[in-house]
């Protein structure tokens, strides 16, 4: 089985399990008393946000190692992770306002968490544009590695922004010191959703990595 096919299967399993998470979240998870149905967006928004940030951290780490080792596999992984991170960032930036409208009364506000997440999304777009703009593979990988490291430095700031600034955005419920402040039934749904997003991230990255590898091989044959 080729790498692309493995990725395809992981993605397929992830998408089927996502349907199961939808059923569990919408039909079998209790409503939160103060927020009502809008709180259920949490089961998609937070796992997508965690993987948006983790993907950028992995891009930065791959960038650091690439600058030392010059291994093209690291650059290929960073490229794949950036594309998947952009997809997850799009989910974060669309589900967030859909939650914000009924809870805050506005789709968007320029507070620290929201603005820094938007900045991360633009960084992802810039990263992909940079990769598309530089023709030389060695130079492209080096520039991308540096930009990836800059992106990685932004991630802790995004996560801590709710502690550093007075923001409208809720404080972390899962990723915080101490126990998660969710009842067990909600926590199980969230953990299942997080597992599914992890599977989807892996499946997408494996497929995108295989695509990049094949294109490089074809480029070498043509050259």
């Amino acid at each position, binding site marked *: 089985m080729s790498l692309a096919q493995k*990725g395809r299967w992981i993605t397929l399993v992830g998408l089927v399990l996502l349907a199961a998470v939808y059923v569990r979240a919408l039909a079998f998870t209790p409503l939160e008393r103060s927020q009502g149905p809008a709180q259920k967006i949490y089961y998609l928004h937070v796992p997508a946000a965690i993987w948006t940030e983790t993907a950028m951290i992995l891009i930065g780490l791959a960038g650091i190692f690439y600058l030392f080792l010059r291994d093209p596999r690291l650059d290929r992984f960073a490229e794949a992770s950036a594309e998947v991170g952009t997809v997850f960032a799009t989910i974060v930036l669309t589900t967030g306002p859909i939650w914000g409208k009924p809870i805050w009364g506005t789709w968007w506000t320029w507070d620290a968490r929201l603005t820094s997440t938007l900045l991360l999304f633009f960084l992802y777009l810039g990263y992909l544009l940079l990769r598309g703009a530089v023709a030389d593979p060695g130079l492209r990988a080096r520039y991308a590695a540096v930009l990836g490291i800059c992106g990685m430095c932004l991630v802790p700031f995004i996560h801590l922004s709710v502690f550093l600034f007075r923001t409208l955005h809720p404080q972390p419920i899962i990723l915080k010191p101490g126990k998660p402040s969710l009842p067990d039934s909600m926590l199980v749904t969230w953990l299942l959703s997080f597992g599914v997003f992890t599977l989807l991230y892996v499946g997408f990255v494996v497929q995108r990595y295989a695509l990049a590898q094949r294109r490089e091989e074809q480029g070498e044959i043509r050259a």
Partner: protein
Amino acid sequence: MVAAYIVTAVILLAYAFSLYRRIGKDERGPGRVPGVSSDERSR
């Protein structure tokens, strides 16, 4: 709330399909003519 679930599903399915198509296109190679099947080309 339902809108968020629909949007997420659409984004994930669209990306999965885009990867499927790009990898498929790549497997067929650069000589493929859009809209012309391999059977027609061989004829």
